Structure formats: C-alpha cells, structure tokens
C-alpha cells in the first residue's frame, strides 16, 4: 500500500493526488473526502495549529490500521495548517482500492479518526475576537462506531 501523508500550508491539486493513486493501474476505485471552511456569518479566518511530528505519527498509525481492515492499494492524507479563509480546502483523504466499498469505508474511517485523534486545533477569527473551536461529541460517536 502506497501512503502519502503531508501537513502543509499550501492548497493541493485533487487531479494530481487522485492520479498518483491510480497510475499503477491496480485500483479501479478511489473514494475521496475534502473538508472546506464554511462561509458563515462574520467568520473571517480559520487558523489551524498542530503538533508537528505527532501529527504525522498519529496519521501514519491511523492509515496503517485502515490498511489492516480493508484491502487498499494507496492512501493519501493532506492536512493544511496556518490561516485559511471561508471556502478554502482544509483536508483531503483519498483512498484507492480494487473494491469501492472498501475505499468508501476506509475513507470515512480515516476522517472519523482524523477528527478525534490527529492533533490539530482550529481557531476562528470573528468580529468579536478569536475563539478556539470546541470539539464535537458527535465526532467521538462517529469514531466509536468503528471499535471492534
């Protein structure tokens, strides 16, 4: 299974990332997820902080776990950090497999665990100041579903 994990300030190219997962011709199915900064009210900037090294280590562990649960040919995870604007893309998880159900399941599994395990924190800038985003318990419930 080829694995690409990148934490970066820059945006990413979906065409190139999906092409990277399929150039070997093994996988017929690629399930992808992109998370975007929503446009809401007075939100002007979303700033992402992370824990360097642990982020990559934790995502590597999550991808390895996905690889033991489903037959995957490749996984790409790109998470942006720094200052983002409404409409910007935050995260990409793309999973290639010979089986589309495996690709969908692994992609959703990785998103659920990214949301609950990868050490990123979002801070919103609004007209009344800066606020750290609160963790959502619905994300814990989503990850809980996958417990064996």
């Amino acid at each position, binding site marked *: 299974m080829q694995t690409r994990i990148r934490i970066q300030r820059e945006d990413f190219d979906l065409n190139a990332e999906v092409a990277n997962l399929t150039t070997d011709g093994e996988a017929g199915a690629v399930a992808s997820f992109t*998370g975007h900064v929503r446009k809401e009210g007075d939100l002007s900037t979303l700033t*992402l*902080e*992370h*824990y360097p*090294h*642990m982020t990559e*280590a*934790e995502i590597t562990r999550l991808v390895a776990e996905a690889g033991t649960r489903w037959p995957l040919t490749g996984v790409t995870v790109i*998470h942006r950090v720094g200052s983002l604007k409404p409409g910007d893309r*935050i*995260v990409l998880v793309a999973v290639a497999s010979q089986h589309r159900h495996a690709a969908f399941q692994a992609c959703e599994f990785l*998103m659920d665990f*990214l*949301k*609950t*395990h*990868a*050490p*990123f*924190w*979002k*801070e919103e800038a609004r007209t009344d100041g800066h606020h*750290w*985003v*609160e*963790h*959502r318990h619905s*994300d814990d419930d989503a990850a809980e579903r996958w417990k064996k």
Partner: protein
Amino acid sequence: MNLLYFAWVRQKIGKSEEQMTLPVGDVASLIAHLKNLGPNYADAFADLTRIRVAVNQHHAGPDAPVAPHDEVAFFPPVTGG
C-alpha cells in the same frame, strides 16, 4: 522532561514549551504538580475533562507513566479535519 502546550493550553500557560526536572510518576501526578506552579497553570488545568495528553507523541491517559526524558504534551480535545 520536555513539556509542550498547544492551543488554549499554550495561551493560558503563556508558553509553548519548557524543560523541567520532575519526579517520576504518572500523567495525573504530573498535572497535580504543574497546577501548583502558578495561577496560569492552575487556570490551564482547572477542568481536566477538557485536557488531553500525549506522552512521546502517543495519546495517553491519566495512569500513563512519565519518565525523565519523555516528551509530554498537553492540549484541548482535537478539532482538525
């Protein structure tokens, strides 16, 4: 021991990283020690239901042991993705 703080834990304590020589123990005893270092630490660790810990870059619970050369990080529940 190398201590790291992130997000509002970092802001409340007023620094992102510090070195300390501390008695060997577990995560819970380490937090109890830190809470006594000043009002900024007491504020950061006031509600432990809102604090998460990683030891050597692995998520860890209150019973996890900590040793002199460990890297221990304190942060709020994560909000990435």
